[in-house]
């Protein structure tokens, strides 16, 4: 395990007991007859990275997709319980999904740039939400998003080229730039580095750590090393239930639950 990451995590948690940004209460998800998530309670602190770990099919991605209501796009999916964003229930009747998703951005497992130019990819969100008044504003939003995603220097001379022409790691950073271009408060990442090579992965991980200052980040990951490296808090899911959550350092060094320990030591997974 990376000791540097460990100390940093502990340091961050101890220094700033952050306010709760997203809170889940008794969240269950059904896909048709099948229950995928059983009564999850979880607080996600602001401006920290929360990692959701667990074996495949444990419900961690399902939970992630509840936070920006992406499960709505699956006709057979049904969500019960409550999830609040800044103490407002996002499944409440007055909530506008479109607005919610502008506030809660998402980055997917496989880079999915639109078949458009790099510029148009990043400009997509600001355009549909009508954020910029002028072309100049739009350009500076695109530029700043690409800078924050650490991609500006690599693409600034070819903004008109298709986003699909970039390498895998660059595509994923493009998707991150696209997601932060709408100025979200929360950034959901669904195994953002699983399709990338180790070098691209480390670039993404460093980026996540930098983005933490401006965004609340929830990341689903398969890799415990990654969770340990990038996150301050970790939640362990198993068989659709939240088994244990806490400061990343505590979870990894001193798990309370037997299942968590088994997973971390490689007995299940």
């Amino acid at each position, binding site marked *: 395990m990376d000791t540097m990451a460990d100390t940093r995590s502990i340091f961050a948690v101890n220094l700033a007991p952050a306010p709760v940004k997203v809170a889940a209460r008794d969240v269950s998800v059904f896909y048709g007859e099948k229950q995928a998530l059983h009564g999850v309670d979880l607080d996600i602190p602001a401006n920290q990275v929360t990692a959701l770990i667990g074996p495949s099919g444990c419900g961690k991605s399902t939970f992630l997709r509840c936070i920006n209501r992406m499960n709505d796009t699956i006709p057979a999916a049904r969500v019960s319980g409550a999830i609040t964003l800044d103490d407002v229930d996002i499944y409440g009747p007055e909530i506008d999904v479109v607005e919610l998703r502008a506030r809660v951005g998402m980055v997917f497992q496989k880079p999915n740039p639109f078949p458009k130019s790099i510029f148009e990819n990043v400009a997509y969100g600001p355009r549909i939400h*009508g954020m910029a008044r002028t072309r100049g504003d739009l350009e*500076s939003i695109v*530029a700043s998003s690409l800078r924050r995603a650490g991609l500006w220097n690599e693409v600034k001379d070819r903004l008109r080229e298709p986003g699909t022409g970039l390498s895998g790691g660059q595509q994923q950073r493009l998707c991150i730039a696209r997601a932060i271009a709408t100025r979200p408060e929360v950034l959901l990442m669904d195994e953002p580095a699983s399709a990338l090579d180790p070098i691209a992965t480390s670039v993404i991980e460093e980026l996540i750590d930098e983005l933490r200052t401006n965004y609340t980040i929830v990341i689903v990951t398969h890799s415990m090393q990654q969770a340990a490296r990038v996150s301050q808090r970790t939640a362990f899911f198993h068989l659709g239930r939240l088994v244990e959550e806490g400061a990343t350092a505590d979870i990894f060094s001193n798990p309370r639950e037997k299942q968590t320990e088994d997973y971390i030591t490689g007995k299940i997974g």
Partner: protein
Amino acid sequence: MTPDVAEPAEVALRAPAEIAALRRRRYAAERRLRLAGIAAISLALGLLGLLVVTLVVGGWPAFTQTKVRVDFPVERALVDPADPAAGNFRKVVQLGVAGLFPEATTPQELRAAGKILTPGTQFLLRNAVIADPSLVGRTLTLKVPAADPYDQLAKGLVDRATPEDRRRLSDADIARFDRLVAEGRVSRPFNTALFVNPDSRFPETAGLAGAMVGSALALLVCFALSFPVGIATAIYLEEFARKNRTSDVIEVNINNLAAVPSIVFGLLGLAVFIQTFGLPRSAPLVGGMVLALMTLPTIIIVTRNALRAVPPSIREAGFGVGASRHQVVLHHVLPLALPGILTGTIIGLAQALGETAPLLLVGMNAFLTSTPGGLTEAATALPTQIFLWADSPERGFVSRTSAAILVLLGFLIVMNGVAVLLRRRLERTW
């Protein structure tokens, strides 16, 4: 990684209230798109509904036929029992009509009254007497189809309120017919003639029997040619042919043939089958051959799909016990693919049944008053018969055209239904 710059200059974004207003407009666009989709589907299905309703409403009356019960005195003076075919049945009909209207004395009146019956009445009588010569000397009571204008009148398709000079029937004609109705001589049974008679110039005696037989013969030829050839081609391409230039050419060729306009196949049939090979015009043989060429791509494509759906493990199992490639294909792969092939073949034949243009070019639109007796005799087919009737000026043919379309659609529905059932019953998913 080092960040490219520190924090970029902040941009003055639109205010949240402004963005919220924009969002309302975005949702309006969303609703518009949704409505446009619903409107498009409703329009398409509405037009389908309109088509069906028009045909059913228009075709319904043609399934019944107005008939008049007439007593014909078959006098010995007019018909010789030894040679009934040579009898003067025109006169017999006139006597029968005179019996209906004893008050009609002038020849003009009698002639006008005689027009109530179909012009084919004398032949109906003749056939009845030939079939049973003992009728000579007795009175024969027949239910004779009413002529088209009276059929329309009886079905309420003639507006009696129209001024007399703009109707085909005068007030006197209508009065005569109404009297027959009052006497209980008029009935409207099911129009069996529509199914058992061949074509005729008179709507009241025209039927689809010739066209149905013609279609059946043409489909038979089409099936006999396209089914074996199609399956053999598909098996060759899918199981035997090496993937090379030749097989690519054949493949592209088949895909393009499937999209060639049907009339071009008609031109091919005309130039090659009729002109070069000297096969007879208007024959179901030629029509069937043209339809076979058109159906071939369909059968090849569905057969290849069905063969592809059989998992390779079946083939490997066959090879594993030492079967040759031919044996594996014939004994194992083909039987498993057969349901899919049959389903596709039936659908292909249904398409062929509805095909019109190529049959027009090979002359299967002749006016024929007899049912074809063989593959090389002149014939029509259901769709070309519909085309012929649609072109006929008589009012009665309008509803008969709709009725013929309903019959054709009935056949298509049955064929497609059988295909669907077959798929449900026999097709398995691997």
